[in-house]
């Protein structure tokens, strides 16, 4: 049992294989049962391993490692298919399997009428498997396999309804943009092999602590790996795939945003914390990119009218927070925000899915409103999620966000801290805007949608309630120090993995002040939202009229997609076309066709020899014989 943790990823792998190969022949009930059961088994095994780990943690000792077999062994590079289980892995495995299980159950209701039911669950299982591979790897090579695996699964699931051109394009976009980051990530791994001589996490940690790894090398590797994280975790400038990823089924969005995929970058940075701690420049970059993304994405979330896109930009913004946490050296705070975010973001997405389900697929919040009377359970769930993400005191988001902001302030990066506060105001604002537009105010429904309005079945609402509970209560695992000693269980649990850095301690007064600031900021955002969208929407309309240019700029997403199109995609397309026209057709094809033409010409020239007359052949034979004999004799 002590070594059984390596089987955690095995269950979803078996499920994925079974469902993708034989799924179309199974009945729907069997598919749902198998799909959910494998993830549940994974979750229970994670829980057992977690409890086993806690029991032995007192005895000390490093992480548990299970090497299944040596896979690569070439020169300096050697990698085994090996898994590792320590505190950080335990947290990640529990979040991934736990949230995924809830989403699987929800999907049973949400995807009920879909044609490719088995393919959906097979891919979902494959996604969970890839993510588990990623978080349980004990070296960068296996992590990279999982890293690419989630990229592949996101492509397959975002483009799940591939008959829809927008969905197919979104899947392709996600895949290609991830590829850009992954290229840098791979180069980072190769440098790691070069400088450290291996990719095992223990080896990296030892090299970093012994001083074998210089600050310059650490900066280089850290930045390259972070570029990969920017792609996977949707940070500036590679975030553009995530809003488009909303084309996939809503539970998939919940899965991508909460449990699998986008958290991979944060996990990677936290996992390699000894390396990042060596390099102030890399950390500075992480923090600044995180803060910039948090604010940038939040501004776009404020003006979007698509319920899922608002949530998508909100995810980008919250991921920025996690990177702020990692960048200021508070890795545990970053992971803690990842943990709470997993609950409330999956809750918000699944509630949004429930709204869409009730409204026959409506996404535009301008055609919603007043739904709280019709969808009471969904409303309660969405409200909990909104409060949690906005940072209202005593809900989970408050504690995790506050931990990051406090650490950012304590580390002396006041600009980053201020940006974080700004993003927090906007977070509270856009989330309550969403809540008010969807559930309060006048009903602005389409008549056809109103006729079929209904609350979702229990298979969808029960997962919402579970997640709502976790969103509300998840924060109590780590309370601020001022609330009392020893209440910060979460960071202390991670101490075996995340090396405590030199922490600047703040006075009690300052801490209280910071907490009060965070609270005030959240409340300001909420009050603004009520002023803007509470009864009538006079204020925002006036603002739009006053600053039409600014509004269009933000509403059109700063024309970033257009910019990328003009600067990167179009020149590439044009260039490829030019190369095709001028080089491929003329030079390459010309050479090939020329060779063929030469052969044909030569054949035509030589075929006069082929007269078909026997006597000519006989004469040639005779001449040949005479020449040979002549040579032999003379």
């Amino acid at each position, binding site marked *: 049992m002590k070594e059984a943790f390596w089987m955690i990823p095995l269950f979803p792998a078996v499920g994925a294989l079974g469902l993708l190969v034989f799924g179309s022949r199974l009945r729907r009930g069997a598919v749902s049962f198998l799909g959910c059961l494998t993830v549940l088994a994974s979750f229970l095994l994670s829980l057992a391993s977690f409890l086993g780990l806690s029991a032995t943690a007192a005895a000390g000792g490093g992480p548990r490692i299970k090497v299944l077999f040596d896979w690569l062994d070439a020169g300096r590079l050697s990698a085994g298919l090996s898994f590792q289980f320590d505190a950080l892995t335990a947290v990640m495995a529990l979040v991934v399997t736990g949230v995924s299980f809830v989403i699987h159950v929800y999907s049973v209701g949400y995807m009920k009428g879909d044609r490719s039911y088995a393919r959906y669950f097979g891919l979902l299982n494959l996604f969970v498997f890839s993510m588990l591979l990623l978080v349980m790897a004990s070296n960068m090579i296996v992590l990279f396999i999982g890293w690419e695996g989630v990229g592949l699964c996101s492509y397959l699931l975002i483009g799940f309804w591939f008959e829809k051109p927008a969905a197919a394009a979104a899947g392709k976009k996600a895949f290609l943009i991830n590829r850009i980051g992954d290229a840098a990530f791979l180069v980072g791994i190769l440098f790691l092999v070069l400088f450290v001589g291996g990719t095992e996490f223990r080896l990296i940690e030892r090299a970093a602590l012994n001083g074998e790894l210089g600050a310059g090398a650490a900066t280089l590797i850290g930045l390259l790996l972070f570029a990969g994280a920017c792609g996977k975790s949707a940070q500036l400038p590679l975030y553009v795939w995530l809003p488009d990823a909303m084309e996939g089924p809503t539970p998939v969005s919940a899965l991508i945003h909460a449990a699998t995929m986008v958290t991979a970058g944060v996990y990677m940075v936290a996992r390699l914390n000894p390396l990042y701690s060596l390099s102030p420049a890399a950390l500075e970059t992480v923090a600044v990119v995180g803060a910039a993304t948090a604010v940038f994405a939040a501004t776009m979330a404020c003006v979007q009218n698509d319920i899922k896109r608002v949530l998508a930009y909100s995810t980008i913004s919250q991921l920025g927070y996690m990177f702020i946490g990692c960048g200021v050296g508070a890795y545990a705070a970053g992971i803690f925000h990842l943990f709470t975010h997993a609950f409330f973001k999956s809750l918000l997405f699944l509630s949004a899915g429930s709204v869409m389900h009730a409204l026959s697929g409506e996404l535009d919040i301008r055609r919603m409103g007043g739904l709280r009377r019709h969808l009471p359970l969904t409303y309660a769930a969405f409200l909990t999620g909104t409060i949690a993400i906005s940072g209202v005191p005593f809900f989970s988001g408050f504690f995790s966000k506050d931990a990051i902001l406090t650490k950012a302030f304590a580390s002396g990066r006041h600009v980053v801290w201020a940006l974080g506060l700004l993003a927090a105001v906007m977070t509270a604002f856009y989330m309550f805007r969403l809540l008010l537009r969807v559930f309060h105010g006048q009903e602005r429904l389409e008549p056809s949608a109103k006729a079929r309005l209904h609350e979702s079945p229990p298979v969808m609402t029960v997962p919402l309630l579970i997640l709502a509970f976790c969103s509300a209560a998840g924060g109590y695992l780590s309370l601020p120090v001022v609330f009392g000693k020893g209440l910060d269980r979460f960071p202390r649990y991670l101490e075996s993995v995340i090396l405590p850095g030199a922490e600047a301690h703040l006075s009690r007064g300052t801490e209280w002040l910071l907490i009060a600031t965070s609270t005030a900021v959240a409340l300001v955002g909420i009050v603004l939202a009520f002023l803007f969208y509470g009864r009538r929407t006079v204020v925002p309309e006036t603002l739009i009229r006053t600053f039409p240019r600014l509004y269009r700029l933000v509403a059109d997403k700063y024309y970033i997609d257009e910019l990328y199109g003009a600067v990167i995609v179009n020149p590439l397309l044009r260039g490829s076309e030019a190369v095709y026209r001028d080089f491929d057709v003329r030079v390459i094809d010309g050479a090939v066709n020329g060779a063929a033409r030469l052969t044909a010409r030569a054949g035509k020239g030589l*075929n*006069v*020899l*082929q*007269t*078909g*007359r*026997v*006597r000519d052949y006989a004469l040639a034979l*005779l001449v040949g014989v005479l020449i040979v004999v002549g040579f032999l004799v003379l």
Partner: protein
Amino acid sequence: MIPASWFLALSGVLFALGVLAFLIKKDLLLMFLAVEVMLNAANLAFVAFARRHGLLEGQAAVFFIITVAAAEAAVGLAIILLVFRRKKTVKADEISVLKG
């Protein structure tokens, strides 16, 4: 006794005549005949050498060649017959389907 070189000279003359006939004649049957002449020229050379060196292998080879020539004549004449049936001619120059 007639020296072996005379036989060899005769053999050479016969072979040259065969080649010449094969190249000049247009009739398949006559060309076939020319081939036979060349074969017999070879036979003569074989027995001449066999007698000169007092060995039997050369004479044995002649028997083989005669046998093979008989078989070849059967097959060859049959082919010529079939060609005639199909093309209504045995003129070699008119049968040139292999022309490139």
